[in-house]
């Protein structure tokens, strides 16, 4: 269990260090759409944190980091529940 906690801390450190370095360029699909002159509509469902930012936090770095940290723990929790549900209890 200790090893898993270390890995989670490592993931959060990597997130803190690497998010400011992440590229803002469009990804493959966005680039194809852009080249063809196709506009992405405003999403039907905006979610709580559109584009991994908290609308209430002005600083883009902190905003993305907080959204990312929230997402990491969210996925961690939901995937753990999934892990319990889809596996056989050990006898």
């Amino acid at each position, binding site marked *: 269990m200790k090893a*898993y906690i270390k890995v989670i801390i490592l993931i959060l450190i990597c997130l803190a260090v690497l998010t400011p370095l992440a590229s803002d360029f469009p990804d*493959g699909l966005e*680039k194809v759409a852009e080249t063809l002159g196709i506009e992405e509509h405003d999403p039907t469902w905006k979610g709580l944190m559109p584009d991994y930012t908290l609308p209430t936090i002005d600083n883009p770095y902190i905003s993305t980091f907080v959204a990312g940290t*929230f*997402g990491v723990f969210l996925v961690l929790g*939901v*995937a753990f529940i*999934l892990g319990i549900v889809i596996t056989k209890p050990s006898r």
Partner: protein
Amino acid sequence: MHIPDGFLNPAICALMGAISTGFLVWSWRKARATYPRSLAPLLAVSSAFVFAAQMINFPIVYGTSGHLVGGTFLSMLLGPYAAILSMTIVLMMQALFFADGGIFTFGANVFNMAVIGGLSFFLIKLLTRNPKRSGWLFRSIFFVSWLSVVLGALACGLQISFSPVFSEAGGIAVTVPAMLFWHILIGLGEAATTTTLVSQLHRLQPTILSGLTILRGRQSESIH
């Protein structure tokens, strides 16, 4: 490669939703028959890792970027069934909370990234089946993780080509080559990252790849 709402026509959304649902039911059943409870923490942490890694876009060329998809990586750690389900959780949280990937296009996104990524396990298993090729594991992981991104992009190019906006812009003859061009390059990033991650994890914790019964069969073959 996350398709936003508005890029697919309703028929394609429904078709991909049905296909992905089929794969999810299959994975769920297989997972329940295969995995021990001890998999749960590894599944949780590796899913969280893939979520974080997908936030970090790396630049390619000509003002385009890509990020790790992680399907092949998950399939190496968790086996195909849990990998498909794990990636589906990541995509679901991205669509629900971060507006990354649409709601109606969810089925297509699950197919392009989770299903294709998870199934890469079987191709790697096939490529490394011959015991004389035990050194082929990392070469296979490199090739298959690259292929998983390219095939996902091919599927995505086909899906978007049917929508009115893209068919007006030239349809399949434009979308498929364009998607393939960018993702042949993005796939190299995927391949380098996946191979590095799996080989380093294997070095630090050799049991990580043999922890699963389904993987153990192949591992013991390659030792003898």
